[in-house]
C-alpha cells in the first residue's frame, strides 16, 4: 500500500519539473513525531464531527425534510452519503502529494474567478434571479465562493512561499496579492454574499499577515476598507435588518435569533437529550443547516456545545502543529489557511447561533447539512493530512533509495 502511494508521489514529482527548486527543499525537521500524531488526531476529530453531523442533521432536519420532501430521512441519507464521500476524500487527498495544488493553484484561482464572473454575468442577463451563489446541477451544486476560498488559500500559499525573499516589498510582495484578493472578494460581494466576501477577505489578510507582509501595509489597507464595508453593509435592507436585530433590544430580535436563543437556553447545562429538540419542529428555520448548533446546544446542552467548540479548537491546534512542522513553506501556508478557514467559519457560525454576532449565512463545517461544502472542507483536511505525512514519506523514499543503491540495484 505504502509503496504504491510512494510510486504515485514519485510520478508527480517527476512531472513537476518546472517547480522552483527552493520550494521542494525541506524545512528543518523539528524533534519528535508531532506532525504524524497531529495528522491522526485531526482525522479522528473530523470523523467524530461528521458522525455528530449525521446524527444531528437527521434529528434536526427530519421535520423539515418531512415537510419539504415528504421523507423524514431525506437529509439522513444525503448527509451520510456526503460524510462517506468526505472520508474518502480525506483518504485520497491525504495520500497524494499536496504539491499538485501548488502547481494548479493559478489555474484553480482563475477558474474560480471565471465562475464568479460567469454567475454575475448570468445575473446581469437575468438568467439567474436573486443571489447568484450556486453553480452546477443536481447533487453537484456548490457555492462558487467555496471554490474561490480554497483557490485563494492555495494561490496565496504559493505566492507567499515564492515571494518569501521579498515579501516585505510593497510592489512585488503586497500589491499583486491584494489585487487578486480584492478581485475575488468584490465578485463574491456582488453575488451578493457580503458575509462570505468579508470572511474570504479576512482569510486572505490573515494568510498575508502570517506570510510576513508588513503590518503597516495591511493596516493601511484595512482602515479604508472599514468605511467601504460599512457603506456596503447598509446598502441592502436585509443587512440593515440583521444589524438592527443584533444591536437592538430583545424586542427587535429577529424570529431566528429569538428561536435560536430559546433553543440554546432551553437546553441548559445538560440538554434535553438525543432527539428531544423541540426547536427543530419547524420553529427554527434552517435548524439542519446554519442553525444546527442551536439544536446541538438544545439536545446536548452546554456540555455538548462545549464539546463541539473544543473539537474545533482541537482542529486548530492540530492544524497549527502541522503547519509548524510542515516540510516546506507552501505546505505551511496551506495548512494555516485551511485550518483557519475551517475553524474560523465554525466559530463564526457558533457566534451567530449564540447571538454574539449578527446573522450571516455561514454553515458549521462538517456538521451542517450541505454536501459540497463538506467535500471542500474534507479536501482541506485531506491536505493537512497529506502535509503531515509528507516528511515521513520523503524519508521512507530516501531510505528505500539508499537501500536500493547499497544493494547495487538499478532504479
Amino acid at each position, binding site marked *: 500500500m505504502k509503496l504504491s502511494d510512494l510510486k504515485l508521489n514519485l510520478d508527480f514529482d517527476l512531472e513537476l519539473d518546472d517547480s522552483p527548486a527552493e520550494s521542494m527543499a525541506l524545512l528543518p525537521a523539528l524533534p519528535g513525531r508531532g506532525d504524524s500524531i497531529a495528522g491522526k488526531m485531526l482525522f479522528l476529530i473530523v470523523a467524530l464531527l461528521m458522525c455528530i453531523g449525521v446524527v444531528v442533521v437527521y434529528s434536526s432536519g427530519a421535520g423539515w425534510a418531512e415537510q419539504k420532501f415528504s421523507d423524514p430521512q431525506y437529509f439522513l441519507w444525503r448527509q451520510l452519503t456526503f460524510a462517506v464521500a468526505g472520508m474518502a476524500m480525506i483518504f485520497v487527498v491525504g495520500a497524494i502529494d499536496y504539491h499538485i495544488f501548488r502547481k494548479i493553484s493559478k489555474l484553480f484561482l482563475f477558474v474560480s474567478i471565471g465562475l464568479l464572473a460567469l454567475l454575475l454575468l448570468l445575473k446581469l442577463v437575468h438568467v439567474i434571479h436573486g443571489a447568484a451563489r450556486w453553480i452546477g446541477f443536481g447533487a453537484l451544486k456548490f457555492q462558487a465562493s467555496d471554490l474561490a476560498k480554497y483557490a485563494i488559500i492555495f494561490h496565496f500559499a504559493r505566492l507567499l512561499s515564492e515571494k518569501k525573499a*521579498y515579501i516585505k516589498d510593497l510592489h512585488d510582495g503586497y500589491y499583486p496579492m491584494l489585487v487578486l484578493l480584492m478581485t475575488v472578494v468584490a465578485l463574491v460581494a456582488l453575488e451578493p454574499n457580503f458575509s462570505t466576501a468579508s470572511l474570504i477577505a479576512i482569510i486572505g489578510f490573515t494568510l498575508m499577515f502570517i506570510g510576513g507582509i508588513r503590518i503597516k501595509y495591511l493596516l493601511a489597507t484595512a482602515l479604508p476598507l472599514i468605511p467601504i464595508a460599512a457603506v456596503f453593509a447598509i446598502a441592502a435592507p436585509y443587512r440593515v435588518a440583521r444589524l438592527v436585530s443584533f444591536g437592538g433590544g430583545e424586542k427587535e430580535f429577529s424570529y431566528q435569533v429569538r428561536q435560536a436563543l430559546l433553543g440554546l437556553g432551553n437546553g*441548559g*447545562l445538560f440538554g434535553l437529550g438525543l432527539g428531544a429538540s423541540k426547536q427543530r*419542529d419547524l420553529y427554527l428555520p434552517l435548524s439542519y443547516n446554519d442553525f444546527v448548533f442551536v439544536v446541538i446546544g438544545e439536545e446536548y446542552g452546554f456540555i455538548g456545545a*462545549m464539546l463541539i467548540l473544543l473539537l474545533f479548537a482541537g482542529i486548530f491546534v492540530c492544524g497549527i502543529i502541522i503547519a509548524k512542522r510542515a516540510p516546506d513553506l507552501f505546505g505551511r501556508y496551506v495548512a494555516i489557511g485551511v485550518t483557519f478557514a475551517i475553524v474560523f467559519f465554525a466559530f463564526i457560525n457558533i457566534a451567530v447561533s449564540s447571538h454574539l454576532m449578527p446573522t450571516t449565512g455561514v454553515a458549521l463545517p462538517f456538521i451542517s447539512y450541505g454536501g459540497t461544502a463538506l467535500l471542500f472542507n474534507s479536501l482541506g483536511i485531506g491536505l493537512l493530512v497529506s502535509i503531515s505525512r509528507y516528511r515521513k514519506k520523503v524519508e521512507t523514499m530516501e531510505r528505500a533509495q539508499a537501500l536500493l543503491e547499497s544493494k547495487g540495484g538499478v532504479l
Partner: protein
Amino acid sequence: MNDERTTPEPKGTSDHEFGLRLGVMAALMLLFFLAIVSKLLGIQVFDVKKYRAKASRQYEVMVTETARRGRILDRHGRPLAESVESISFYADPKHVTDPGAAAQLFSETFGKSRRHYLDLFRKKRRFVWLERNVPVAQAAKLMSQKIKGIGFRREQHRYYLNVGAQLIGLTDRDNKGISGLEKSFDKELRGRDGVRVFQRSATGERYPAPDAEQVLPMNGNDVTLTIDADVQGILEEEIAQAVAEFKARSAMGIVMDARTGEIIAMANHPTFDMNRRSGLTADQMRNRAVTDMFEPGSTFKIVMAAAATEALQWRADRLVDGHGGTLTLYGKHIRDHEPFETITFQKAIIESSNVVAASTAMKVGPEVFYRYARALGFGQKTGVGLIGESGGRLKPVSRWGSLTLPWMGYGYQVMATPLQVLQAYATMANDGARMRPFVIKSVTGPDGKKVMENVPLKVAQALKPETARYMAKEYFRAVVEKGTGKLAAIEGIPVAGKTGTAQKLHNGSYQGWRYYVASFAGFFPCDNPQYAAIIVVDEPQTEYYASAVAAPAFSRVCGRALACSLEMQKRLSMKAPEKELLDRVSTVVVPDLKGLRESDAAKLLEWNGLKLEPFGSSGGSVTSQSIAPGSKVEKETKVRVRLTKRVQQVMDTKQDRRADGAAR
C-alpha cells in the same frame, strides 16, 4: 535554506517572525473562543430559567375541555334539562395529506358528496369547518380516527323537555345558569372544566404533552327534582287553558305531596319556549308561584277556621250571625255575595261568608289570630329554596289598624304567595304538621353517588291533629261536596278545599275595579290526604268567581294527574272501579304542534298520550296537524302532521303562531 534562516534579509521573513505572527493569530482565535464560551455560559447556564419559561410558553398550549353540564331530572329520572354534546369538524387544508381519502370518509359518514369536501380541502385558508354540530353517535367513528389536518371540537347544547320553564330556568352561551334552578344549582350542575396541555409545533399541529399535568374534566352533578314531568305537563296545559278560557292575565298552579312537602308540579302562565328561547321577558321568566304575592281572599279563611276550632272550640253546628249579608265596622261595609241570617259555622265556611269570617276573627282576637297565621306559614318564606321567593306580607299585631283583624279574617290586608296558601292547606291535610316544601330530591354525582339528598322536614306542628282532621272533614270537604267548590270534585276521590275570589287592590282602592284573583286550594283524598294543589288565576275577564274559574281547573289537573301517574294511584291505593272512572277522565287535549321540529312534536304528543303520524319530509317542521289544537280526544289517538323542511315556511309558521298568540 539554513543560511536564509540565520541571515534574514530585510525584505524577507523569518521563522521567528512567523512564530510571532502565528502566536498573535492563535491569541485572537483564543479570544474569539472565550467570547463564545462566555456567551454560551450566559445563555445556557445563567439565564437558563428565563429561556426555559419562554420555551414552555411557546411549546405548550392549554385547551379547556368543558365539563358536561349535569342533567336536571324529574322524580322518575326523566331528563327535564340535559346537555347534548355535538361535534364540529374542522380542517387545516394545508395539513391534510390525503384529501381524497378524507373526503371519501366524510362523504360516507355524512352523506354529502365527495366533491363538497374536496372543495373545502382545496381552500387556501388555514381553517375550514367541515361539519358543524353533528351528533356524537354519528361522529364517533371519525373522532376515533386520527386524520392528519382534521380536528374536532365538542360543543354543548342544553336541551329542555320544555316544562317547568320558570322553575328550571335557562343557561347562557357559556353554559352558565342564568335563571331558575339552572342558576341556583349552577355550582352543582356545572362540574369542573378540564385542562389539557398540548405541545404545539411551529406550524400549529398539536399533540398531547406527555409529561404535562392533564386535568380531566369532571362532569356536573345531576339534580333530581321532586317534579313529575307528566303532572307538570298536565298542570301547565290546564292553567294555559284556564287563561285562554277566561281571558285571564296570568295563572299559577302547584301540586304538592301533602305528607312530605315535595312539590310535584309548579307551573306559571304565560311561559316561554325553553329550547327556542322565544319571547324571553322578565314577565314570562318569573316563577310567579313563589315570587308573586297577592291578597288571598277566602282561601285565607283557613286561619280563621283553625283559630275558631282550636282556640274557641267551635264546632260545625255552632250558630253564627250572618248580619243579613252586610256588617258595618268603623263606617266600612263587609258584604257577602248573598245575605245570610243565623247559620251554622259550617255553612258560613262552605258558602264563604265574609261577614262571619270577619266577626269570628274579631272574637278570636289579634294575638291568637296572628299566631295561627304564622303557624300555618304566612308572613315567612317557606324555605322551598327557589330564586326570588317572597315571604308574603303579614303585619305584626302592633301595626294593625282597627280594620285589620276583621279584614284579615276573610283574606285581605295580608299578602301571600300561591305556595304559602298551598302550604297552609297541606298542613291541614298533613294532620297539622307543617312540612317545608322542596323541589330538589337529590343531587347525584357523575359516578352515580348521591352527593346530597333532601329529606322531608317538619317545620312546625301548626295544629293539633284532631283539629286538622276535624276542619278537613267538617268544613273543607263540605266546601267541595256542597259549597262553592263543587266543581273541584274529582270523580271517585273525596276532595277538600276552598275557593278564593279576591278583589284586587288598585291604586289603594277596591272600588270601581273589577279585577279579581280567583283561586282554589285543596287536597285529596279527604279521609287520608296525600296530595295538595292550588290553582290561581289572575284577572280572569269572562268569569271571576273562583268556583267557576279555579275549581274546575283544580279538578281537571288532579283528575288527569291521577289518571296518568301510577305513583299517585299507588299512594291512593285505588281500586279498580275508581280507576275505571279515572280512565274515562283520561281524554287528552291535542297540543298545538305548529312550527315544532318532528322530534319535539313527537315528544310533546307522547307526553300527552298521543301518537305522531308524520308525512312530508322527515326531519322538517310541522306545518299542519290533522286534529285541531285544543280538541279533546281519547288517549293513544294518532295525530297526523305535515312536515316541511323549507326554512321560509317555518318562519311563516312562527309568525302565524305569534299572530295566534296575540289573537288569543
